[in-house]
């Protein structure tokens, strides 16, 4: 950064153009070795979207195979490898890093009015660990084909041929990437809040990120230990997970889900944080029940540690244990419900702008509500019995992970896209993508609830013919969903090439990131910005499409406010 010239003498517009973090330094190394959290965030964004593309293609391969009850074009063994790859890439390379590492990296410091995260070098190393882990993981899995499922259940994983040890080492490395990000955010949020930003004046996205980071730091080490033990069992037969050497497979399941259930909240909490921001900004109204939403994030993070046993209701745990886990499982549903109700109340008497971003936010609430409610069947012990390990479960967690996290992530990307790239996008095609995702998603996964209640087990390459009709419906839906996502990608690419210049505050957001230029200068803020209520929209007035919303100091004389133009395509 030392070679950056002093630009303060230049006119404002030119200075802004040259200080823009995207172009303030040039060349491959200026990105590869950058310590700028915004660049790292963008690199993560490209990375996780690539991973999502690969895993999404694998999902379409799965759906294509399931068009017929017999082997359509994959053998059973190939099918098992495909669903393993799909699950493992989606979970470890896409969903877990998606919101925290990509959007979180970009937003956390800017929302705090800070220049960067607390440990910029740790941040960059986290990205490279992710790259290393991803390469390691993918190479291992593609080399001979991993077929253990993403859960690596023993003793199948200790006995199958295939690169289990190498793949688990990939998971181990990715775990560190996740821990570094979490640690960084905890320290950043604890120590770098600007003067005046008390805990309860933080944007809710930061609350959600904070809760997520706590889980990342506390739970991920358990995953590391689990995969190390698994590797030791496989190589040295230490006798902990493999019954052949006096181990117990259920012990493995406890270890694995002790991480992997909290990990579900690593995946969904940031999505909820995004929705809290989106609902408030695009309803132009302060978030309803701020404290309840903030506390519910922390409650979810804490309760989330106590419910892992519900993945093992049919594993033969003791009755008392099973019943306790069922009771604890239901405790998580309450804070999730509270969030949904508060989002709805935020709309009440607000000024709802039905743009692309808001459509994604409403899409999230619709799909996440289904995902949450269907959890009731699976948390209740007697109804879980027939539904466990069937397509009902598959549909349920896709509603939460895809309908929740992915849709929330996309909504977030659309919302902060002008801030990240400095370009606006096509509202019309953005809404088209949202509609296609909505239709395609429901068409894919609603039939799977019925498949599950009728008894279709998971992870079947072949199935009995009476399930075909629903499987075909589901596959058609998957292709519609895939098409919708391609439209979204097209919107982003079009925006990069042809998009209009974005104003600093196109939506009228009151959080700090909207106070710097779009895209922000490499230093974010020269001086710590004045901290206001992150959801007070009164001092914001709309100028026009080019200037967007502007912040008027409360003591300045009142300026007549223009009506925002209807969203143009």
């Amino acid at each position, binding site marked *: 950064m030392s070679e950056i010239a002093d630009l303060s003498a230049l006119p404002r517009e030119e200075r802004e153009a040259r200080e823009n973090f995207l172009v303030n330094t040039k060349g491959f190394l200026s990105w590869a070795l950058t310590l700028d959290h915004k660049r790292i965030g963008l690199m993560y964004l490209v990375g996780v979207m690539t991973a999502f593309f690969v895993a999404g293609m694998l999902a379409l391969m799965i759906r294509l195979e399931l068009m017929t009850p017999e082997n359509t074009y994959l053998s*059973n*063994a190939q099918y*098992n490898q495909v669903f393993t790859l799909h699950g493992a890439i989606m979970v470890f390379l896409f969903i877990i890093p998606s919101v925290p590492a990509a959007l979180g990296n970009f937003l956390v410091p800017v929302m705090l009015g800070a220049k960067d995260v607390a440990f910029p070098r740790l941040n960059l190393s986290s990205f490279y660990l992710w790259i290393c882990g991803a390469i390691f993981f993918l190479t291992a899995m593609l080399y001979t084909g991993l*077929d253990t499922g993403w859960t690596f*259940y023993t*003793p*199948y994983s200790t*006995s*199958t041929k295939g690169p289990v040890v190498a793949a688990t080492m990939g998971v181990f490395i990715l775990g560190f990437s996740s821990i570094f990000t979490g640690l960084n955010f905890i320290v950043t949020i604890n120590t770098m809040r600007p003067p005046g930003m008390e805990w309860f004046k933080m944007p809710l996205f930061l609350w959600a990120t904070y809760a997520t980071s706590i889980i990342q730091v506390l739970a991920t080490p358990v995953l590391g230990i689990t995969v190390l033990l698994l590797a030791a069992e496989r190589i040295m037969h230490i006798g902990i997970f493999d*019954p*052949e050497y006096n*181990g117990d497979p*259920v012990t493995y399941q406890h270890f694995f889900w002790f991480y992997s259930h909290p990990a579900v909240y690593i995946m969904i909490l940031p999505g909820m944080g995004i929705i809290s921001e989106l609902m408030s900004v695009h*309803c132009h109204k*302060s*978030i309803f*029940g701020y*404290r309840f939403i903030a506390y519910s994030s922390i409650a979810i993070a804490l309760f989330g540690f106590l419910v892992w046993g519900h993945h093992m209701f*049919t594993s033969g745990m003791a*009755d008392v244990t099973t*019943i306790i886990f*069922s*009771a604890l499982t*239901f405790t998580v*549903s*309450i804070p999730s*419900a*509270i969030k949904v*109700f*508060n989002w709805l109340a935020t*709309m*009440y*008497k*607000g*000024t*709802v702008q039905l743009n692309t971003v808001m459509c994604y936010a*409403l899409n999230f*609430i*619709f799909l996440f*509500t289904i995902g949450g*409610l*269907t959890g*009731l*069947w699976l*948390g*209740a012990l*007697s*109804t879980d*019995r*027939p539904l*466990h*390990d069937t397509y009902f479960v598959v549909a349920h967690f896709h509603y939460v992970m895809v309908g929740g996290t992915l849709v929330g992530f996309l909504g977030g990307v659309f919302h902060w896209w002008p801030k990240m790239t400095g370009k606006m996008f096509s509202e019309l095609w953005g809404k088209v993508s949202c509609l296609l995702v909505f239709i395609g998603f429901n068409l894919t996964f609603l039939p799977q609830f019925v498949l599950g*209640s*009728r*008894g279709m087990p*998971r*992870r079947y*390459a*072949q199935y009995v013919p009476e399930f075909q009709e629903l499987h075909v419906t589901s596959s058609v839906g998957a292709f519609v969903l895939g098409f919708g996502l391609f439209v979204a990608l097209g919107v982003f690419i079009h925006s990069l090439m042809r998009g209009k210049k974005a104003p600093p505050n196109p939506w009228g957001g009151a959080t700090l990131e909207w106070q710097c230029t779009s895209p922000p200068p490499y230093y974010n803020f020269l001086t710590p910005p004045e901290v206001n209520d992150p959801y007070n*929209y009164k001092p914001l007035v709309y100028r026009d499409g080019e200037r967007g919303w502007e912040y008027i100091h409360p003591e300045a004389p009142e300026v007549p406010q223009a009506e925002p133009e209807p969203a143009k395509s």
Partner: protein
Amino acid sequence: MPALPTLLADINETYWFPPKASTFAEETDAFFMVIMWISLVFFVGIVIAMGYFAMKFRRRPGYKGDSSALHNNTLEITWTVIPTIIVIYIFYRGAVGYLDMVNPPEGDTIDINVTAQKWNWQFQYPNGAIDDELHIPENRNIRLRMRSIDVLHAFYVPAFRAKTDVVPGRVTTMWFQPTKKGDYDLFCAEYCGDDHSKMIKRQGVHVLNDDDYEKYLAKAVKAPDHPIAKGYWLWDKRGCKACHSLKPGETLQGPSFAGSYGNMVQLYGGGEVEFDDQYIQESIYDPQAKARGGYENASAMPSFVGQLSLDDVQSITAFLKEMGKEDFYNLVADDDGLSEDDKKALGISDADVAAAGSGEAEVGDDGSSDEENAAEAPDGDEAA
């Protein structure tokens, strides 16, 4: 409006669920529908509120929002307490139902041992008979004690609404009381490797009336006496047939047994070895030691140490030895050592014997019952 619940109740019978065939089905299905109604009320409420607010409070000329409603503790407490009460009810009813599902009532139960392995099920009845399909009497409490000899499996009969994992190293138990005669599907519900999706018994759970069950047990074959017949019987009942065909050239997960004995076979990683008594015994007890070329996934086969006795291995050897020979059927036809029961166990009909002259019959063509053919059908389709 009253028509709607009736309609939905109708749909629930035929649309949502497989047939009800155990005492659990009534309660789990009813409870399923209760949760459905609760969820629908919440879901429809949320969606209507969402749609209504999005329309009514949309940004438009002349409309000004009112941002004074920011929190309301009464509202927050209401929408915390009501869902809490509802989930307490759901938890309670689920837990009570669960306890009924895991603890069989006092009194008579029929205990059946279940052994799961890649990718087959075996059932051992109280009289010692072993079969690969489950035959049970209706309206009796059936208790399964389940063991796995390799990896995790799960015993799942959708019609019974019953599912329990089979965990290697543990004995898991489950019980149910079938209430309706018929043939039901059995699925493996825990991922167990390549042919997980073929570890099913299509219509392979037979609920019989008491008489038929007694008849079944009476004629359920214990191991036949003649070693060749016993070898075939072990192949049929102890899981070999899930991976090893008797049809020449048919490749399932493992190589076909047809025409193997006495020939040289290629080994995985080079070299060859004669398929003889020694090789058969070694392959049964230590399958990975000399895996066949082209079958890298020999790790799928578990060791049968402790499962098959030396006597069993000798019978299998005798069977493999004879089935390769042209005069195998002549041996049968001469009735030289094979009793009628043995022939039945071998699945050899008079037609096979007649066909033996032309050398086209296949031993694997089990003509003893339609049910068994149905169960084998998926195997037959896997020709690589």
